[in-house]
């Protein structure tokens, strides 16, 4: 008797709400389950609470309502987080910024050289290891932040619009690198983006969020088990899925204001 064995749940949000100031609900009734190995994208209008969900998952924020259970701390899984802003240490150069997570785990500088160099090469910053954050362009800073999240080869990756400040070519190359890495490591990714195409290309599941209050209004699973490559981008399934996500987004109340 063959039974589908579902991977274990890494994070589960049940009826989660978040209120920052009395009166204003940022999130309400958010249900989300992330299983090991999944690539979940969060998509939604600006200000709907995507970053907040990510921070709740990471435990950087406490929920005002509902329950959150995490299954990653007890397995000692490495977590990587790319914040929406680069969040670099201004007094440390690029190498030291990327070295940080390894350093916090007791890795020596010499031992960290190879992983840091690899991470920097991945984001195309091999030549800037000695530069300080204020000497970098906006996109370069964000790439340092990505390298820092990847240097641990984490099993859970939380990424908040990591590629928004990057040109399309770098972005699509990093998309492929990210998928490759995920496959290599069997990592789980929760990913925030504004690009429908990117989300469909990358995700095993897309959670479309709506605003006022922030909540999940649709979950869409792009064709599973299909190799992500140029061919997929040109496939009808891809186009259909993009259309479906866009339609869901249109219902979310994005872009509704006007002069």
């Amino acid at each position, binding site marked *: 008797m063959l039974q589908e064995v579902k991977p274990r749940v890494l994070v589960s949000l049940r009826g989660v709400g978040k209120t920052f100031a009395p009166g204003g609900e940022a999130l309400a009734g958010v249900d989300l389950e992330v299983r090991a190995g999944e690539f979940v994208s969060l998509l939604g209008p600006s200000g709907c609470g995507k970053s907040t969900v990510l921070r709740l998952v990471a435990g950087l924020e406490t929920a005002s309502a509902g329950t959150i259970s995490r299954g990653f701390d007890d397995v000692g899984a490495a977590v990587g987080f790319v914040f929406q*802003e680069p*969040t670099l240490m*201004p007094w*440390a150069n690029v190498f030291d910024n990327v070295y940080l997570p390894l350093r*916090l785990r007791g890795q020596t500088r010499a031992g960290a050289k190879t992983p840091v160099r690899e991470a920097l090469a991945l984001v195309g910053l091999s030549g800037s290891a000695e530069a300080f*954050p204020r000497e970098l362009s906006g996109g370069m800073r964000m790439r340092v932040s990505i390298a820092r999240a990847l240097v641990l080869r984490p099993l859970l990756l939380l990424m908040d619009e990591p590629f928004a400040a990057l040109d399309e070519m770098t972005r699509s190359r990093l998309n492929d690198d990210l998928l490759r890495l995920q496959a290599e490591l069997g990592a789980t990714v929760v990913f925030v983006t504004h690009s429908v195409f990117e989300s469909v290309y990358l995700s095993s599941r897309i959670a479309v969020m709506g605003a006022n209050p922030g909540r999940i209004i649709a979950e869409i699973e792009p064709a599973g088990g299909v190799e992500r490559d140029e061919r997929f981008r040109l496939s009808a399934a891809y186009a259909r899925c993009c259309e479906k996500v866009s339609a869901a987004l249109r219902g979310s109340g994005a872009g509704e204001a006007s002069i």
Partner: protein
Amino acid sequence: MTPGERLSHWARLYGPPLLAFSAALAAWEAIVRINAIPPYVLPAPSLVAATLASDRAILLPALMTTLWTTIEALALAVIGGAGLAILFAQWKWVERSFLPFAIVLQVTPIIAIAPLLLIYLDASSAVLVCAFLVAFFPILSNTALGLASADKNLVDLFALYRASRWQTLTLLRLPAALPYFLGGLRIGGGLALIGAIAAELAAGASGKSAGLAFRIVEAGYRLNIPRMFAALTLVSLAGVAIFAALSALSAFIVGRGRGSGAQ
């Protein structure tokens, strides 16, 4: 830079203060001469300079004593102030329990009970304690401000990566606090000096091992006002030198870490 450019650069940098200073000195000299103010009311700068030269055998050892106290007090203040700030940042309950003591220590004018200190300590230790107490609080306060100023998002990042308290301190809070600490250090340097002088006034030794404060008071008793001003000039020069040295140290430290502080 060509030598000519370098010259004009220096002139622009140091011209105004030198000019202002010379002008102030000239005005002082002129006022004294024109009004024929007797030296025991206000000695002319030329007389002060002459006294400085002629009394150097008395004044320089006293300067050394005072400077040494100042440096010791500042060193203690750095250790005590920064150390306490770090402890406070690490454990809130330590801060809540000991901040009141730190404030009490700072505002209690130990100088006023310096005589009692002499029961337990010798004169130079009593002076050191007083000078230390004047200098340590700005360093504590500014360092604490700096430690709390660390970027909230970076604090989150460190929390996420399960950084130990110690790691968060050394890798995040201390670098973030550096410019604040250096600001406190510059304040503390001057305060250690005037603290040392005030403490010497209250409890300082007399005679051969005496500091500049004693020389100033002695000159006052002996109505030797030019020497009083000469000693005072030495104190001021020492203070300016301490400030300049600490500023240079700040520039060096911040320069080495580049971008430290502001992004």
